[in-house]
C-alpha cells in the first residue's frame, strides 16, 4: 500500500513538461524530379523552390536537435524496375523561422550525425535534393520511394 502511495506521489510531483518541449515534424513537399530521360542523370538541388523535398519541424527555442534521414537507394517503378538515387553531402539545407536565419547545409546521409541548434528559432524548414541516374535500359514510367526524417531533441 505504501509503495503505491509513493508511486502516486511521484506522479503528482513530476513536473508537467511544457508544450514547447515537444518536437513535431511534418512532410510538406515531395522531392519531385519530374520527367527524367533514360541514360541521363537528373539532379534536384535543395535550393530548388519547386522540386526539392521539404519538411517542417518545430522544437523549443534553445534546444539542440538531431536530424536523421532514412534515405532510399532506389525508387520503385513499373514491373519491379528500380531507379537509383543518391544524396550528396550538401543535399540538405535547414533554415530556421527566426528573422535573419541563415541557411545551414546538412549532409542527409546516414551516420552524418547532423545537429541543429534552434537558438531563437522555434521552427525550421529542411529542404532536400538528390540525384537519380536512369540506366540506359531503364523502364519508362513512374517511380516513387519514401524518405523519412526523424528529428530528436538532444
Amino acid at each position: 500500500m505504501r509503495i503505491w502511495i509513493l508511486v502516486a506521489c511521484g506522479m503528482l510531483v513530476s513536473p508537467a513538461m511544457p508544450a514547447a518541449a515537444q518536437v513535431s515534424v511534418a512532410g510538406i513537399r515531395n522531392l519531385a524530379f519530374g520527367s527524367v530521360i533514360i541514360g541521363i542523370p537528373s539532379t534536384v538541388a535543395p535550393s530548388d523552390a519547386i522540386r526539392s523535398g521539404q519538411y517542417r519541424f518545430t522544437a523549443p527555442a534553445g534546444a539542440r536537435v538531431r536530424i536523421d534521414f532514412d534515405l532510399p537507394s532506389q525508387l520503385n517503378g513499373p514491373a519491379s524496375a528500380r531507379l537509383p538515387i543518391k544524396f550528396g553531402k550538401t543535399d540538405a539545407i535547414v533554415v530556421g523561422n527566426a528573422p535573419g536565419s541563415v541557411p545551414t547545409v546538412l549532409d542527409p546521409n546516414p551516420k552524418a550525425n547532423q545537429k541543429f541548434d534552434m537558438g531563437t528559432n522555434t521552427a525550421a524548414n529542411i529542404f532536400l535534393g538528390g540525384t537519380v541516374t536512369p540506366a540506359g535500359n531503364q523502364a519508362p514510367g513512374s517511380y516513387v520511394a519514401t524518405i523519412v526524417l526523424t528529428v530528436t531533441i538532444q
Partner: protein
Amino acid sequence: MRSATVLSAALAVGLSLGAGALQAQTSANINATATVLAALTVTGANDLQFGNVTPGVNKTVAIADAGAGRFDITKAASSGVALSFTLPANLTSGANTLPIGTWTGGWNTSATPAGATSFTPSASATNTTVTAGTAISVYVGATVSPAVAQAAGAYTGVVTMSAVYY
C-alpha cells in the same frame, strides 16, 4: 535499508510515469518521385564524301567505304523505328547540277558496315524498319555521274534521314 530501496524505486517509477507525453523524437515522410521517359536520338555522324571526282567518270561510294555517310540512332531496346530518306537527285553548284543516284544503304547494331542489313534508300523515301538493339548505325552510299563537260564549281546537297517512331 531494503525497504528504503524499494520505496525509492517506487518513487522513481512514479516520477517517470508522471513525465507523461513528452515527445523528444518524431518522424515524418515525404516521397521522392520521378517519371522516366524513353528517348530517341538520331545523329548524322559522317558526311557522304566523294573526294576527287573526274568529269565524265562515275564515282561510287559504297556503304563499306570510308567515305560512306553514317547516321547513328539510339533508341529503347524494344521500340521500333522506321527509317525514311529524302535524297537529292542532283547536287548543285549555282545553276549547275551534278547527278547523284544509285543509293545504297545498310543498318547494323554494331558500329561497322560489315554484316549490315541491306536496304535501298531512294528519293521516294522508301523505308526499312529496325526493331533490334538500342544503338543502330545506318550507312548510306551513292554514285555521282559528272558529265564530260561538267562545269567547275563546288557541288552540294542535303541528305535527310527520318527516324519514324511507331
